[in-house]
């Protein structure tokens, strides 16, 4: 990792507390750092910090461990790109400068804003150059950011600032850009970010995003830090820098909402945020609970229960006995955690099982209703036949309720034709396709089918979620015949 700081005149080396005529080395937990001066004369001074990260030591470090044995764990850009590792090195090597200490013979120097040029040839930025600009420009920097590859940015900052503030900003913003920390974030980090951000963070338009990322996505910590930053500003009376006197509370009324948006935005949360107030996923749950209640279903299997939201809600109604089935052990773990705090009486009505709709399973038998909500679209078309067979011919519950996205509606989400709402969707059916499928499956399995929808209705495109309600057609057999007799007397062979 590498960084240079340049400033006109010769005062920089004093502020950094590092002699311009020497190459100084420092031992760090993650490797070794050197400070040297490529330039130091009366006109200008440029200081360089070179950090040689010991990748092997880093890989061995438990704190840095991502998960078990990922290759990324062994070969990564940690040694090269500026990240939390560089932030920590800055804090170690330039501790006094960052604290704003005056050099012994130059009182007041540290407090004086000065022209600074900071060069980081390689910054890891999950949001590329735009994010870099969004983070630094509101602080008054001219940020010249060039992407080598989308996540690797060459950054040159220039502006007028106190050196200590500039270093503090790097200290907080480098980990934010990278959005990952090489060490475990504990509550002490709240103190750190409040301390380093006191002068500038409270007013940053992306303050909440910065706190959320810096504090390793722990909402509680982020909220705590935000409150403390606000408090710090309040104690000082007027806002510390621009003096606009804007009441903080009002300016950030949307703070919590923004935190949400940042958290999952990039990682493929589905486009379920319908125009309505209630998210579509929640509408589906309400619909299904009401439907099952109306049907008088007792034993319900939620096939593809995921993290168990529907299961959890069904347990609030005493009539249901619920089995949640999912193919993912990870999802089942989370579903299990969701149920942990339930009363024993509720727990007695629920069980979670690992199961797949593509494998026949005797545990699917004997239910009043099987729910497959937002499941079929995650199954490859060539495996649907097995699912149909296992549900409609083998398990044969009284009812089957299938929900799936309505592809017709996707236009209202601004999705290009054929683009699915979620990257894992193997297909999305139009209403005609879905109804054709459901009717065929129902006919083969001996089920009546009706169609319904969930979510706001468009006159032409229908509702975002389409629903098929299957009801088994029970043919009363020729009564009273004992099985053995039937076979003896009626045997074909």
């Amino acid at each position: 990792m590498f960084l240079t700081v340049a400033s006109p005149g010769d005062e920089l080396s004093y502020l950094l507390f590092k002699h311009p005529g020497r190459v100084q080395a420092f031992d760090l937990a993650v490797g070794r750092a050197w400070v040297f001066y490529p330039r130091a004369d009366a006109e200008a001074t440029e200081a360089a910090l070179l950090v040689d990260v010991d990748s092997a030591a880093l890989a061995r470090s438990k704190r840095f461990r991502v998960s078990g044995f990922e290759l990324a764990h062994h070969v990564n850009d940690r040694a090269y790109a500026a990240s939390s590792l560089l932030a920590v090195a800055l804090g170690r090597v330039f501790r006094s400068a960052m604290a704003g200490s005056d050099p012994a013979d130059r009182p007041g120097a540290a407090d004086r804003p000065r022209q600074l040029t900071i060069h980081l040839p390689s910054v890891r930025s999950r949001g590329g150059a735009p994010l870099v600009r969004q983070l630094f420009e509101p602080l008054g920097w001219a940020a010249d950011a060039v992407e080598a590859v989308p996540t690797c940015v060459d950054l040159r900052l220039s502006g007028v600032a106190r050196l200590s503030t500039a270093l503090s900003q790097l200290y907080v913003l480098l980990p934010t850009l990278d959005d990952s920390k090489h060490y475990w974030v504990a509550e002490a980090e709240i103190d750190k970010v409040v301390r380093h951000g006191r002068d500038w963070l409270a007013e940053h338009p992306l303050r909440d995003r910065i706190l959320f990322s810096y504090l390793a996505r722990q909402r509680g910590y982020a909220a705590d830090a935000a409150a403390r930053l606000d408090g710090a500003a309040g104690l000082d009376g007027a806002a510390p820098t621009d003096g606009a006197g804007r009441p903080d509370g009002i300016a950030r009324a949307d703070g919590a909402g923004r935190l949400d948006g940042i958290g999952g935005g990039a990682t493929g949360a589905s486009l379920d945020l319908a125009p309505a107030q209630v998210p579509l996923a929640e509408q589906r749950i309400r619909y299904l609970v009401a439907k099952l209640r109306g049907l008088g279903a007792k034993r319900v299997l939620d096939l593809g229960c995921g993290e168990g939201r529907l299961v959890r809600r069904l347990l609030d109604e005493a009539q249901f006995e619920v089995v949640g089935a999912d193919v993912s052990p990870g999802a089942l773990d989370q579903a299990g955690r969701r149920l942990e705090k339930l009363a024993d009486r509720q727990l007695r009505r629920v069980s979670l099982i690992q199961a797949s709709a593509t494998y026949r399973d005797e545990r699917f038998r004997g239910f009043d209703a099987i729910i497959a909500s937002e499941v079929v679209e995650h199954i490859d078309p060539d495996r649907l036949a097995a699912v149909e067979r296992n549900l409609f011919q083998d398990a044969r519950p009284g009812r089957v309720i299938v929900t799936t996205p309505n592809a017709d509606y996707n236009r209202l989400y601004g999705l290009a034709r054929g683009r699915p709402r979620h990257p894992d969707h193997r297909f999305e059916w139009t209403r005609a396709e879905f109804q054709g499928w459901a009717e065929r499956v129902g006919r083969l399995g001996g089920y009546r089918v009706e169609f319904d929808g969930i979510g706001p209705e468009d006159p032409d495109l229908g509702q975002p979620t389409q629903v098929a309600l299957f009801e088994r057609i029970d043919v009363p057999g020729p009564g009273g015949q004992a099985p053995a007799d039937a076979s003896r007397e009626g045997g074909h062979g």
Partner: protein
Amino acid sequence: MAELDIPELSLVLLIGASGSGKSVFAERHFGAFEVISSDFCRGLVSSDPANQAATEDAFEVLGLIAAKRLRRGLLTVVDATNVQAAARRSLIALAREHDVLPVGLVLDLPEAVCLERNRDRPEPLAESAIRRQVKSLRQSLKGLGREGLRHVHRLTSPAEVDAASIRRTKLYNDRRDDLGPFDVIGDVHGCLDELTALLVKLGYELQRDDGGELVDAEHPDGRRAVFLGDLIDRGPATVGTLRLVMGMTAARHALAVPGNHEAKLVRALGRGAKVQLGHGLAETLAQLEAAGPEFTERVRAWCDGLISHYVLDEGRLVVAHAGLKEAYHGRASGRVRAFALYGDTTGESDEFGLPVRYPWAEDYRGRAMVLYGHTPVLRAEWVNNTLCLDTGCVFGGKLSALRYPEKELVQVPASRLYCEPVRPLAAGMGAGGADADTGAAAGAGPEADGGRQRRPGVLDARDVLGKRLVETRWAGRVTVQAEQAAGAFEVMSRFAAAPERLAYLPPTMAPVASSRQEGYLEHPLEAFAHYAEAGLAQVICEEKHMGSRAVVWLARRDGPADPGPSAAPGAVFGGGPGIIHTRTGRPFFGRELEAEALDRLRAAVERAGLWDELDADWLMLDAELLPWSLKAEGLLESQYRPVAASAAAMYAAATDALAAAGARGLDVGDLLAATHHRQANAAGYARAVETYGWPVDGLTGVQIAPFQLLATNKAACYAQSHRWHLELADRLAGADPAFIRRTRRFELDPADRPAAARAVAWWEELTAQGGEGMVVKPMTSPVRRGARLVQAGLKVRGREYLRMTYGPDYLDRLDDLRQRNLGLKRSLALREYALGLEAIDRLVAGEPLWRRHEAVFAVLALESAPTDPRL
């Protein structure tokens, strides 16, 4: 001296008062684990064998142990007083539940003897209790047979007890020592002409009596016919058929099991029973009447004496008229007999008024082959190692026989339709057969066996979940832990191709032992040493293409294809040309591009003349698909390129700055040199990364490098020499050089030092040109050294290539890296190799889908274990 007969598989109830000597008797005549005593169970649950308060718990444990043993088919003796009817009733129920015969062994000794022995005990029971027991026993004696005990042996004096011995008798259905060979024949229904034609076709010599009637048929090689029942009714010549088959069984040239029609005939000919005379029975009775009372009585006795099923050939073959589920093999009970005669009925009827039968064969997971008839089908079709041989001769279909153990079907067509079927024979059957694997999507209506489709390809969660032991030919039993199975279950369900299209997954490959050569982590010499030590005279070095592992299963022509010579025909390829999938079972391409790639391969195979030469309808290739970036683009984007870019940017700035500082007179010499070195390492890394990716457009730019022909529908080919495999691959490459890439190779004796030096030079040159490295393989695999399988290949990766896996600076810390632990990876490679071969063997042998899937699934499950990804 009394010899007491006890069926080999039975639940023996010792019955007698305390002091009658049950335990001593049991110890003398039965094995230690065969006897479960109530006293012992009281001890287990309460630490006191005499604790009467623990009786209820003790009997619960006793019942559980007995149930487990019976389920495993083990004789079990219950050593308890069993003098109360209630106690016996629950044990008899237990025997029935497991379809074994309950046997009573009564020690009915004089009360005085019991009392005297009781007095000698360290903790005698109250005498009143013993008197009560003796009294209960006496009261029970008369009714024991009616309680359901099949045999009751009673010993009444100490002398008799001493003199008694036990003889274990085989069940009638147990013919495991009869090894065949057999010709198993489906439902004849009085079609004597077809039967004789079939017997002749099978090679039997017919014998007639003086009146010209057929009375026997004998095979010159000593083969025997096995008749699956329903010899009679509906057809024109019931009497003649019976005469012939009865003659054959009498002469020991045939075995026969009864069908439901024979069972009904026995009832019709018996006294008093009233049966409906439908389904051809009236005609049969008329024919018998014409044949005379003596013949009729012989028929009745013969039919009545037939055993409902047989277990043959060391348990490898089971025959029963309507089939038999595994739990009933070799068992004896009313319901076993009912199943064998009538099948598994659900109690419902279909729209023709015929009973709906549960498709037990779909659930069948047994190792024994089950042959049966009963339900007429258009085509004899394997379902999970079971085969229905009733091909509806009397309805104008065929009379079928299966040669066992050859598994060869021999058929003669019916000369005419003798009887109109109640349900149209063709209804749905063809559809169910042809599309067995696609099931409901393509299937039409109900099928012959009871309104459900016949689905040989149904996989059950129980086939894969939980801890499993997979038997392999090459490495014995391979264990799959439950959590590995759970992980693979998700991957298999969510991402892999449909199981019927996924017949094989390649094993992981172990790297060569870390090299001690200066400057190398991996070096060919260690691989040669490894194989020389294993005693191999010849190895082959194969160029390792830097792509992604790909398995190609290619059909000669579109449409349904058989997975193997004797398996159920099914739409293995979904009606398409085949599949190209990754090592985790994901299809490489979308359907269209896949079809295009397969078409191209198919054409190449055609041009190379391999279809005819191999006489193949499909073939399966192990291959490498290039470029690597095709599958790994995401990884390149998120992982490899950022590392290269940030290293380049950082070192460029750092070296400039250091140079400037040096120019100012600062002492940066060592630091600058070190930084330059790191910069060069990073550049090497960047070069390696960019070597293996290039843009593709559709198939343009895509190449495939096959290196092994795993199997064709005719045979597994994996054991051919690698020279053979590569020559075949060369011919494919020759047929389409733009698409199919040749694999360079170097053969040598691993112990030959000069040859090894030349091979090292060859490898150096290969990797200097940017090659990933090579794989050193035994010329022919699998090969064992002692009992252990030898690694099928060791990869030796190039020095520069390894920067990608171990980081740009890995050469600076070789000493650390040489400590890498290869043990787990190697063991994994061997187990996965054996499982992969097992999957191929099962495929080619035409084993049921669940068996094939078991082996494939196990490979994926083992891959879910965390291992160092750099190996």
